[in-house]
């Protein structure tokens, strides 16, 4: 296998991480919604924590994207 095709395949494999992070972000918001519907009065106070969880889950997906971009353009 030559380097160019290996790079494209590697970038594609790295992009799997983005999909996995999307499951994580969905889990964050879904769990928040589950909790919020059970106790709507407490929901507004937890919005900061919601976005902290969102940021942590999203960061890993963005790192996967960055790895894919580095493989494609910088290696």
């Amino acid at each position, binding site marked *: 296998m030559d380097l160019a095709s290996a790079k494209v395949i590697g970038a594609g494999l790295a992009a799997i991480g983005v999909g996995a992070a999307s499951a994580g972000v969905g889990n964050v918001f879904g769990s928040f919604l589950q909790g919020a519907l059970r106790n709507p009065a407490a929901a507004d106070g937890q919005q*900061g924590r919601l*976005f*902290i969880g*969102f*940021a942590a889950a999203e*960061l890993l997906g*963005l*790192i996967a994207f960055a790895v894919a971009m580095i493989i494609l353009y910088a290696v």
Partner: protein
Amino acid sequence: MAAASKIDPMHQFQIDALSGGALDGSPFAFTNSALWMLIVLACIFVFMWGGMKREIVPGRWQAMVEGFVEFVTGLAITNIGKGGRKYVPWIFTLFTFILFSNYMGMMPFGVVESAHPFAVTGQFTVTGLMAIMTFAIVLIVGFAKHGFRFFSLFVPAGTPLGLLPLIVPIELISFMVRPFSLALRLFVAMIAGHILVDVFGNFVVGGLNAHTITGYLIALISFIFIAGVNALELLVAGIQAYVFALLASLYIHDAEHLH
């Protein structure tokens, strides 16, 4: 652009010298990045200036600016806690600059020739500088206020002694990686959104240039997709500014109160 030409989505992030630089041999050039930072600054200035008339009964503009300021102030004070008010200027600066440059980078000025907007926050140097300055505030405030007790940040309360050799390096790494993750999140989120829109924009042009039924169908689907992605990007631009300000105030909270 011909249908068969190669799509180059990274071209939009290229920094070009508009004057100076190579022209007169100076290492300092006025780049498109600098130009768009000035445009963002002018937008913030106009936005704030319009709301600073100090009327007793606020008009629409003043109510908008007051709501904006109150939102950021509330965000900083609730997350930093006691003594949070003195950090409001920095959090507000971060929030407004990131929000305005995110939105300015998305504006469709490109319909005018050579007026392409430049996403200032799509540069790691810009977001990295903001993250490093936040981290410097954390370090300076932490050491000035607590001295060497600041290192107790790496020992969570109630940790068993046997676990300390494991916990302390983990906490240290997670602390040192903060400016990096803070900068990377904003930068990559902006890059990813712009690349996505650019690639599907090229699909629209390429599909229209193909002059076949399939081509027109692909162009139509891509156009609808772009409209959806742009709506999502408007949301992301706001969320990223909010998250950056939120995490910056949480890190400052650690320096101010040590857990």
